[in-house]
């Protein structure tokens, strides 16, 4: 313990690097949340999409012997899952929250089932060979993607339409742009990004798939999106902050004081959720959701 707090600068650097690593899947998932929620579709299904992506990532990476193929495979499956979510929320007009619950439950069931099918055990997959894993590439992607999305969202026509869809969908209709197509595409992109976040989790932060390995990251990503007020760059920084708290938690786990008692990491675990609750309650400045978020579009 004392060693850590009398830290030399490289200890701090190590902590920052590890928080950057663990925030990578969060950044992917939070950007997925951005695509979905700014277009007007509530997305509590990020968790399930991450889970499906993490299994797909391992499967594709080990099959093609390349982590990039793992990431691609997850993206493709993510597009399909995104389309399925769009089918429910947009075409069949099911409640967004209920659809999200269904997708999360589905993912929690299908991933161990598929894992059992491919690896003969439902608890975890075989480990990836080290050449089938990422060394650092996802970090660079995660550092670039939010800036690209921010630029797209602010300076391109389609980016503008995307934002308007979540605020004043009627205005889009007036301009002759199909809200339905726009939301459908947004959800497919969202599915791909969230699923890639899952692949990053299994092929970069870890070396195999294991049951429920998303462990609430989809909801932390949602929290980051709220803390970032539904804007790409603030959301990105919120992810880095939550990454830092996760890295701290990992680092402090198992460390004990001189009298042998351990530090309750639960309090650090609570941090992202508690902060989000405080922000949602408007105590740290209002975080306003897109106006038409969760609304079911009628023809």
């Amino acid at each position, binding site marked *: 313990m004392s060693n850590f707090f009398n830290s030399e600068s490289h200890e701090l650097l190590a902590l920052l690097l590890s928080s950057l690593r663990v925030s990578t899947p969060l950044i992917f998932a939070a950007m997925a949340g951005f695509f979905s929620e700014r277009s007007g579709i*509530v997305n*509590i299904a990020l968790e399930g999409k991450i889970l499906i992506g993490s299994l797909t990532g391992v499967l594709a990476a080990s099959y093609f012997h390349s982590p990039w193929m793992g990431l691609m495979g997850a993206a493709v499956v993510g597009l399909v899952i995104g389309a399925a979510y769009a089918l*429910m929320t947009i*075409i*069949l*007009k*099911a*409640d967004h*929250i*209920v*659809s999200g*619950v*269904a*997708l*999360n*439950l*589905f993912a*929690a*069931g*299908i991933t*161990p*089932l598929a894992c*059992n*099918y491919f690896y003969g055990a*439902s608890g975890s997959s075989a480990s990836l060979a080290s050449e089938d894993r990422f060394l650092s590439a996802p970090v660079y992607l995660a550092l670039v993607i939010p800036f690209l999305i921010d630029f797209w969202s602010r300076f391109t026509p389609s980016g503008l339409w995307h934002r308007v869809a979540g605020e004043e969908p009627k205005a889009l209709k007036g301009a002759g742009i199909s809200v339905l197509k726009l939301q459908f595409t947004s959800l497919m992109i969202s599915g791909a990004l969230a699923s890639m976040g899952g692949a990053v989790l299994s092929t970069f932060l870890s070396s195999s798939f294991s049951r429920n390995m998303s462990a*609430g990251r989809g*909801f932390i990503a*949602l*929290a980051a999106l*709220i803390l970032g007020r539904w804007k790409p760059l603030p959301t990105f920084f919120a992810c880095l902050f939550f990454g830092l708290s996760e890295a701290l938690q990992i680092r402090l786990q198992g460390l004990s004081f001189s009298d042998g008692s351990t530090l*309750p990491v*639960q*309090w650090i*675990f*609570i941090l992202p*959720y*508690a902060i*989000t*609750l405080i922000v*949602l*309650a*408007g*105590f740290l400045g209002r975080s306003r*959701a897109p106006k038409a978020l969760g609304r079911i579009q009628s023809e």
Partner: protein
Amino acid sequence: MNPTLKQILTSLASIALAYSLGMFFVLAAGESPLLVSKVLFRSAIASQYDLGMTFFYAIPFALAGFSVALAYRSGLFNIGAEGQLNMGALGCAMMGIFYPNLPAFVAPFAAIFAALLFGGLWGLIPAVLKTERGSHEVVTSIMLNFIAAALCSYFILYILKNPESQNPESKTLGSSYLFKSFEFFQGAPVGIFLFAIPVLSILIYFFFEKSILGFEMKSAGSSLEAAEAAGISARKIQWLSFALAGATAGLIGSVEILSNSGKFKMDFSPGYGFSGIAVCLLARGNPLLITISALFFAWLHKGAMDLDIETEKMTRDMTSILQALIIAVVASQQSVVNFVKMRRRKFNS
């Protein structure tokens, strides 16, 4: 047609559709849907013990379903039952561990009361945040689920810890607290709580249909503005329904501890809170039908447990898949019905 009957028929059709979709995954895995169906159907009732286990799962499923329904009645969505049931378990465990020598005629009541209180107060938080600060109850409830899990983990590991066990679990409660299981079920941990379910379902039914509060909840659920115009306090109704929802979910924690494990085990719930959403949706929030719906989901859940052993490729996770498919079908049903009607109209004209 009688609306309740119609409701039951559409629910049955939803089950059939969702089940067929589920069997698609069975086929994809190269298993026989016939065999899987046989296992699912039979292992829930193969013996008195199996039947007991089915009831054992039905109790929390029903309570979670009631919890979701109590909020749903006022137009609120309770996705926080998972956190509320953990807090209920915490209250129950604290009661039984801090006061282990309470006499047997008050002990279980005290523990149940603690569970109701903890669950109810935890359920109240999203309602208060909603009415006072305008925060959406779904997102706050999700965050509260994680906070509850961490709080409970802290209490289990640091305050209520069982020093003799390597597992993350609390000490055992005083023996005066614990319920006996019925001999009939040959060891399945099912006791007197089994009878609490139909009683509760009837009570909630009458509360919804015959009480003024139940009526106020219903009007707030269909239109908050209209209800407020009629002099119903939205705050009172939303606080009340979420507190009741939380208390009902909290009860799950005490059922688990008092009649099954005798201690608070971390992660004892396999997601009862979320299954409650499926249970409630399938029954359309009708408390009488929730009992049946819970029994149905418990049947599937127990049946799926045996898939691990009896089939090669299928696992118990089939239960989550079927729950998810049923939720999806029921939630999208209105548009399917509208679509069919539209086609029929076109066809007729």
